[in-house]
């Protein structure tokens, strides 16, 4: 949106505001005229004075200089009245009412400017009021009357006004509907008529009707009630399902009945014969059976009709409520302009105060966002902008030296992206974040060791600015700058269900991208079952749902990890994290369901019983007694009426790791510390060797192979090995001999050793243990999980 467009919008807002202020002005003027009570008079004058003052400010903000000038003069008059320099007289009131109507007139006709003569006349009248009737003004030269006075405020305004008016002549002409040729005459002849016509108190203002002001409090209440309708929607669909089930059971009854139909008919014939012989009782049973069948059939039909109409109703309700909610949400959406409008000026001024010329490029300010999000966003964005000005953009001389344009550029782009989300990008073309500076600072603060810091990638190092420990110190401006409050910024964004990313190229600039939902109201959750109990995970933080093979879980530093997206991901049980008494229920023994929850910089896999379904829910607080519960953010009520706790992802990530911080440092860094364990496989059969190698490598071990005991022993001497896995029968040197040799060797004696063999006699087992093997696995019951378990126990 360009500045013109912005100005247009602001003027729309001004029209509404000024109309209110003018209305208030005339009411108060009338009150003032009526009252004799001196105290009340003073009060009213005070209000009028403030109204005029506010009107002046508002007019100035939207560049309506003539209204500003009039308001300023009005303010002057009321100011004098306040000080007792002017006593309200009927002349004063007449003039003031005239002035109010005059302004209304300007607004109503949508003229950018009023007639020059009228304006000067009005200003002159106001001047006279202030000057002519007030001897006191003589003492104050700047406010003194007299057209020739060079520094007279009103005169100055008049001057600027005239030039402004001259520029805007064509616009005025158009709205007055006067031919160009008649123009000079028109301004003198027509204007008085027009103004007298418009001076009637009931000025029709079309802009008053098009919008209403409602207190946010009332709106929020309304929204809440609208949201409650979701529950109605959900329970309606639940009921339809119940009815369908009922219909289904009637259908199965019908099938069963039909299957027995032939039998019944035969029986009927027999009964008929019996009846002829005078059996009334069987006739009665027959009658009853017939009645029964008809009755159930009728019921079946009724249920079918009922289910059908319930389904129609439910669809209707669903549609209506969805639209209703959407409209309701739109009511509390505001264009981002309302938030961003003051930014360009703020940036310009902040920059100037530091000797920097900076332009703020604003794009997409027309995108509408939930008011509550805008409010939450304002402070962090202002903060970020300040950082850009203070620390991002260089001084002009430095920019010249760096061959950059002298004027710095800060950009703020708002884009509506798909899925009801908005992307806000804020950045500058300054010197970016110096990773080394961040590293040093983090080490100095003891957030990270020097070795760890050195190992971080450039981006990971830059990411340290989000560490809460980096945000407290005052010396941050010496750093590349963006430390202060970045942690808070990140937290705020995540609280709103958003995600933050950044890019920074040293020397070129940095940018921060915030991805947020447009509206807070829609809360989508994914229902999961944990230890038999349902929980709801906010879908905004659900990264993925995985089915993980138990065998692929690896242990790194006593912590379980799985591979996700090519990186190791910590794995914990959600039941353990929530401290539920019961464990997770596994449906299959070798597979687990994992939901990956994450915020913008950390992800953890949580094992659950089952991931059920995603749905739209209504977020509810837990009540006054449960102000804050660990790991639980709130609760929701399902269509069935069941209450389900909603998980707090931030808490869960903290609970699972137990430590805060390490933001943006991926788990990769940690894994590098932990070298994979190496295993020597000694096996003469190539098939077995290959099989073992692949099993072990799949489990994350580094595997070295040897073809027999001698080969194995040599390899052990050369390579650092954590564990030996050896066959027993091998040429040249058997597994038993190898074990004995290893145990006798000082440097190797402590290496864990597993013998695996097809020899399954007890003597063999005993011998294996005797020579010093840590474990003895029999190939016949050789399954990989057993082997991996044994290995895991040993190393």
């Amino acid at each position, binding site marked *: 949106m360009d500045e013109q467009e912005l100005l247009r919008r602001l003027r729309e807002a001004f029209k509404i505001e000024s109309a209110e202020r003018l209305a208030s002005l005339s009411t108060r003027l009338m009150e003032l005229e009526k009252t004799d009570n001196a105290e009340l008079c003073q009060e009213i004058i005070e209000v009028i004075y403030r109204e005029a003052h506010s009107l002046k400010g508002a007019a100035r903000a939207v560049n309506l200089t003539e209204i500003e000038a009039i308001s300023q003069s009005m303010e002057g008059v009321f100011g004098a009245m306040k000080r007792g320099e002017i006593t309200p007289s009927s002349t004063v009131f007449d003039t003031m009412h005239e002035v109010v109507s005059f302004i209304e007139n300007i607004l109503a006709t949508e003229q950018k400017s009023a007639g020059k003569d009228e304006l000067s006349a009005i200003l002159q009248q106001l001047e006279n009021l202030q000057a002519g009737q007030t001897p006191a003004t003589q003492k104050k030269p700047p406010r003194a009357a007299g057209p020739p006075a060079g520094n007279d405020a009103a005169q100055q305004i008049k001057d600027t006004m005239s030039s402004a008016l001259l520029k805007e002549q064509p616009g005025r002409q158009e709205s007055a509907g006067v031919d160009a040729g008649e123009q000079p005459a028109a301004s003198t002849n027509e204007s008085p008529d027009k103004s007298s016509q418009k001076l009637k108190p009931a000025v029709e203002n079309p802009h008053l009707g098009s919008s209403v002001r409602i207190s946010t409090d009332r709106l929020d209440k309304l929204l809440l009630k609208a949201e*409650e309708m979701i*529950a109605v929607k959900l329970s309606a669909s639940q009921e339809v399902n119940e009815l369908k089930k009922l219909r289904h059971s009637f259908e199965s009854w019908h099938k069963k009945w039909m299957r027995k139909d032939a039998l019944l008919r035969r029986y009927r014939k027999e009964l008929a014969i019996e009846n002829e012989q005078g059996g009334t009782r069987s006739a009665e049973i027959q009658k009853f059976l017939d009645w029964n069948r008809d009755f159930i059939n009728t019921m079946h039909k009724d249920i079918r009709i009922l289910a059908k109409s319930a389904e129609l109703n439910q669809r209707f309700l669903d549609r209506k409520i969805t639209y209703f909610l959407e409209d309701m949400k739109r009511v509390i959406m505001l264009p981002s302009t309302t938030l961003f409008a003051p930014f360009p000026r703020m940036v310009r001024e902040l920059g100037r105060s530091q000797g920097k010329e900076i332009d703020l490029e604003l794009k997409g300010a027309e995108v509408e966002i939930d008011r509550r999000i805008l409010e939450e966003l304002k402070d962090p964005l202002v903060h970020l902008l300040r950082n850009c000005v203070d620390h991002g953009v260089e001084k002009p001389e430095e920019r010249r030296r760096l061959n950059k344009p002298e004027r710095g550029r800060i950009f703020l782009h708002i884009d509506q992206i798909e899925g009801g989300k908005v992307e806000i990008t804020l950045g500058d073309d300054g010197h970016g974040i110096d990773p080394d500076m961040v590293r040093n600072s983090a080490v100095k603060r003891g957030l990270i060791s020097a070795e760890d810091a050195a190992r971080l990638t450039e981006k990971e190092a830059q990411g340290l600015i989000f560490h809460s420990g980096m945000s407290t110190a005052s010396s941050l401006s010496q750093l590349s700058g963006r430390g202060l409050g970045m942690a808070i910024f990140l937290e705020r964004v995540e609280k709103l269900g958003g995600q933050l990313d950044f890019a920074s190229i040293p020397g070129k600039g940095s940018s921060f991208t915030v991805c947020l939902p447009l509206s807070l109201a829609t809360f989508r959750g994914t229902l999961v079952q944990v230890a038999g*109990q349902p929980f709801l995970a906010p879908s905004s933080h659900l990264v993925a749902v995985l089915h993980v093979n138990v065998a692929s879980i690896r242990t790194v530093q006593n912590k379980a990890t799985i591979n996700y997206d090519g990186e190791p991901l910590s794995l914990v049980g959600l039941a353990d994290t*929530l*401290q*539920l008494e019961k464990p997770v229920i596994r449906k299959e023994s070798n597979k687990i369901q994992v939901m990956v929850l994450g915020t913008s910089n950390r992800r953890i896999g949580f094992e659950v019983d089952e991931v059920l379904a995603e749905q739209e829910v209504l977020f*509810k*607080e*837990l*009540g*006054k*007694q*449960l*102000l*804050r*519960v*660990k*790991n*639980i953010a709130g*609760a929701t*009520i399902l269509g069935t*009426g*069941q*209450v*389900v*706790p909603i998980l707090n992802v931030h*808490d869960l990530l*903290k*609970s699972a790791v137990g430590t805060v911080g390490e933001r943006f440092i991926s788990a990769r860094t940690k894994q590098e510390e932990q070298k994979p364990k190496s295993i020597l496989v000694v096996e003469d059969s190539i098939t077995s060797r290959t099989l073992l190698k692949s099993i072990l490598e799949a489990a994350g071990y580094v595997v070295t192979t040897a073809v027999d005991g001698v080969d194995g022993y040599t390899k052990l001497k050369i390579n650092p090995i954590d564990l030996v896995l050896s066959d027993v029968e091998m040429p040249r040197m058997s597994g038993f001999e190898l074990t004995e040799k290893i145990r006798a060797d000082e440097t190797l004696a402590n290496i864990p050793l597993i013998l695996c063999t097809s020899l399954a006699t007890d003597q063999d087992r005993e011998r294996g243990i005797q020579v010093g093997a840590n474990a003895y696995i029999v190939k016949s019951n050789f399954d990989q999980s057993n082997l991996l378990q044994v290995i895991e126990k040993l190393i």
Partner: protein
Amino acid sequence: MNDQHDILLNRARELARPLKDKEHENDVLKIVEFQLGGEIYGLELDHILEVYPLRKLTPMPGVPSFVKGIINVRGHIVSVIDLRIFFEMNCQELTDSTSVIILQSKNMEFGILADAIIGIDTIAKKEIMPSLPTLSGIRADFLKGVSKERLVILDGAKLLADTRLIVDEEVV
């Protein structure tokens, strides 16, 4: 005829009898009596919003053991407390709670479990005696008194105002 008339007159008189002194508004307490773990308690009606049947209780993880869970009261979430656990009483016996008594003040709201609701009774204030020496511990803090019939009357206002009942925990 006359007999009948007398009877009716007597009945009318009976029914029109003024309230007994003890039932005078200011001098009596309206008490909801309920059963919990084999004991009978009373709670002032003034603090009770409603009595709600206990149907589905959703347990909450990570809360003190006296919080039994949350329930849905017409689309509104209410937390439910087991007073016996809060009072640190021994309660091995499993009880079959059927109702939740919802207490409410301006700043607080929660439900307490009740095995059964016995009814509403009016008790004259002067008949309420201070605590029994046998009641000790936390429970004594919330005692309003004991009635002539040895009914233990809990102080609803104190329960509602006690900060020990509030759960406000962060993950550290």
